[in-house]
Every structure is written in C-alpha cells, then in structure tokens.
C-alpha cells in the first residue's frame, strides 16, 4: 500500500520532552525501584524502552533491567495470514516473578499487541504488577486496555498510520501521520 505524509506531529525536541516526562512519571509512580523492570516490545518498543532506561539512569543513577519481548507467537491473528510473520528475538535475562513490569511500545492502537504481550509475560512467571507505557496513543481500542504513561495522545482515523521514527532505526527523531494515497 502506498502512503504519503499527512502531517508531522513531533520533532526531535518534542520527542525528547515527552520521553523525559514519561521517565519522571514512571519514577514517581514507582517509589520502590528495586523491583522495577522495563520490557520493550519488538520492534520499536525496544528502542523506546532503551531511551527511557537511559533517562532514568541519568536522573537517578540506577540501571533498570531491560528486556526485549517478541509477541508474534501470541498474536490472535496468526491463522489469518497467508504467510507467517517474522519472529524476532525475545531476550528477558531476568526472572519476571514478583517484579513491577513496565511494558513499553511505540504506538498503542487496538490493544491486541498488549494482550499478546501480557499473555507472553505470564508464561514466564507471575509479576507483582504490569504497567503500560506507550509513546503514542492513537485511539481505536478493541480491548479494555489503557496506558499508564503516554508520550502523546494522538486521535487518528483508522486508515491512517502513525510512524514513530527514531534515530536508532530511521536516523531521525520524528512522529508522522501517514495516509494511503489510494483507497
């Protein structure tokens, strides 16, 4: 599907401020950080998690354990695809048992990814709590899921796509709304 840029929503500066606010809110909400861990969802959530981890390290001088989660095998639409989606690595080098987990993704849309992520995490153990941090909340939820921390709420239409571009993967920090060129 071809698409074009509809609007540029955030630039590097705005993205940086949003990340800082999210990091502060996570610290405010979790007075005890001993059990706090971050888990980024493949793929962009991994880099969002890394940014937040780095900011928290700068502010509080603590190095939060950070994991990588691929939810593909827990998706609810696996049977619908002609071909199978690519599996990426899951790398959680700590026990999730009794941890306060902050689950991190770039865009929150239907909520189905988060449902899959929670199922996946509970296969690994029983965390004390799971919180959700997303960089963009674009609405259109299909499940009773809402973020505890968000960089920005961005109402969109369903046919649009939110593209969170980060230096780690796209060489630039910006958030774009894309729309299809044809219907």
């Amino acid at each position, binding site marked *: 599907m071809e698409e074009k840029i509809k609007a540029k929503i955030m630039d590097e500066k705005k993205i940086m401020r949003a990340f800082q606010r999210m990091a502060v809110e996570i610290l405010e909400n979790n007075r005890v950080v001993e059990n706090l861990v971050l888990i980024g969802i493949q793929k962009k959530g991994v880099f969002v998690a890394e940014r937040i981890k780095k900011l928290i390290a700068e502010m509080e001088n603590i190095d939060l354990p950070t994991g990588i989660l*691929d939810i*593909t*095998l*827990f998706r609810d639409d*696996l*049977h619908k*695809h*002609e*071909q*199978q*989606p*690519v*599996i*990426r*690595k*899951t*790398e959680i080098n700590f026990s999730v048992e009794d941890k306060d987990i902050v689950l991190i993704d770039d865009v929150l849309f239907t909520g189905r990814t988060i449902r899959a992520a929670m*199922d*996946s995490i509970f*296969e*690994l*153990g029983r965390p004390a709590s799971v919180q959700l941090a997303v960089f963009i909340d674009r609405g259109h939820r299909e499940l009773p899921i809402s973020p505890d921390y968000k960089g920005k709420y961005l109402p969109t239409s369903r046919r649009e796509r939110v593209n969170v571009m980060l230096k780690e993967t796209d060489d630039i920090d910006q958030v774009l709304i894309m729309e299809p060129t044809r219907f």
Partner: protein
Amino acid sequence: MGDYIFSQNHLLGIDHLSDKDIDTILETAESFVEISTRDVKKVPALKGKTVVNLFFENSTRTRSSFEIAAKRLSADLINFNSSVSSLKKGESLRDTVLTLEAMNPNIIVIRHSASGSPLYLTTFAKSSIVNAGDGFHEHPTQALLDALTMKQVFKTIRGLRVAIVGDILHSRVARSNIILHSKMGNEVSIIGPPSLVPREFEKMGAKVHYNIEDGVKNADVVMMLRVQSERGAGNYFPSIREYRKHFAINRKVFKCAKKSAILMHPGPINRDVEIDNTLADSDKSYILQQVTNGIAVRMAVLYLLKGDFNEPIN
C-alpha cells in the same frame, strides 16, 4: 506489521529452497532457541493445528524432536507408527495418507525408505508435507540444524569450509548438507573409501578426497557420518578395523582442520568406530548442541509452513 517472506508450502528437501529461504528458517530457529530455555516451554503459535508424525522407518531422535517441536508450539500431535499400523495389513501409502487426511491434519511429517515419497504425497495430499528423511535422497531438517549449529559458532553460514567424512553414498544427511552448503557458497569436501564416495558427487559441487588428512585440511567443520551397517555399508569396505584405520576421526587427524574447527555428527554415534571416544566428549564436539538445535529448527519449519495453504474442499 512485520514482513512476510517464506513462501514454501512443503519442506521436501534443501534442493527446493533458495538461500533466502534457508536464511529465513535459520533466523526463525534462532528466535525459537530461547523458548526451550524457559520454565514454561510452550507458546500458542500452532494452537488448534494438528501435526502427524508418519514414520515408516525406525527413528527415535528425529521423531521425538518433531514431537517436542510440535508440542512446544501447542500443536496437537499424532504419532503414526508403521510397525503397528494397517500397512502391515496391506494398505498402500496413498490410502494410509488419505485416511489420515480425512482427519484434517495440517502438517504431515514423513520418513520413508523410498526416495521421493514426500514429493509423491504432495501430488494428492492437502496438508503441508515435511520430509524427515526419504531413502538415500534428503534429510532437510538435519542439514538445517547442522547449519544452525555452525551459524551459532561462526556467526555466519557463509564462507565456511565443511568436510563430511564417511558413508556419503547412503547418506541423505550428506546430500542435504552438500546441497545446502553449495547454495550458501561454502566449500564442501567429502571423504571416505571410493566405494562409499562416488565421483558423481563432484557434480553437486563437493570435492572428493580419499585421504582424511587431506580432506579435513583447513576445515571449519568436520562432520562425521555413522557407518550404516544396516544399509549394508559393511559390504563396501573389508572390515570395520580397516575403515577405522583410514577414515575415523581422532585428535591427530582433527588437528589438520583449523584451530577453531568444530566436530559434528548427526548421530547416533558409533564410539571408537568413526569417532574417537574422547574427541566425541571434548569441547570441540557439538553433537549434543546439534540435538538441542534440532528442536528449534523443527519448530521454525512447522511454524513457517503452518499447513493452511490449501483448505480442504467440501
């Protein structure tokens, strides 16, 4: 979300795969390795799918490896054992498969002594067919798990020198490996007595050696094959003692390979026949890691095929 790339409906042999397909299977398998290290070794990816293990030859490791792979993906699994089946009562392969297919499985994993039987199944079966070894033809998942093991050690599956020693003639493992490494642009040497290493294999891109020290020279991987006495390999050389003298791997011969070289064997091993007892247990030996990787590779194959390409016609 995500890129869709694997387009094979069956896994009949390495010959049918492109190098990109091989890369995709290996990358997928690398992600599956982690699942087997968890406390709960199960993901719901193939929930509601049925896998049939259809084995017409004795096999413990390959069959259980497929079984564990299917179960860790939450698929349902039927083991069909030919020795207690209706085949003994005279049913043909085609009728056996059609009967099983009437129960709507998604994937049929077949091992059969007739080369080409998996391909034959695809002419009438609706399920995805996975070749778990057919006669003297191919054993693709073994070559793929060997490749995964090499990739884990050398961080790449290209630019390697692979030496395969033993009964090449009767070995489907050797054939699948030779094809795979030719596709990946690796150098393959095959070593053994002339009766078990015919010159015809040079057409597949392998270099033939009759002297083991020459053959393994500068190799990254030395892969030993079992002396398959049940396939009559004993008729191809005068005695086990003589075979061992010329074609067994020991520390002295292994030193001819690169310093970083690894030793592999598809198993089951005949200790002190083709492989020196202490070398098999040394840190150069990746034989057990191969077995572990077999599960990840078979999970990747079952996941990528899924067996939904052709819905039954009602």
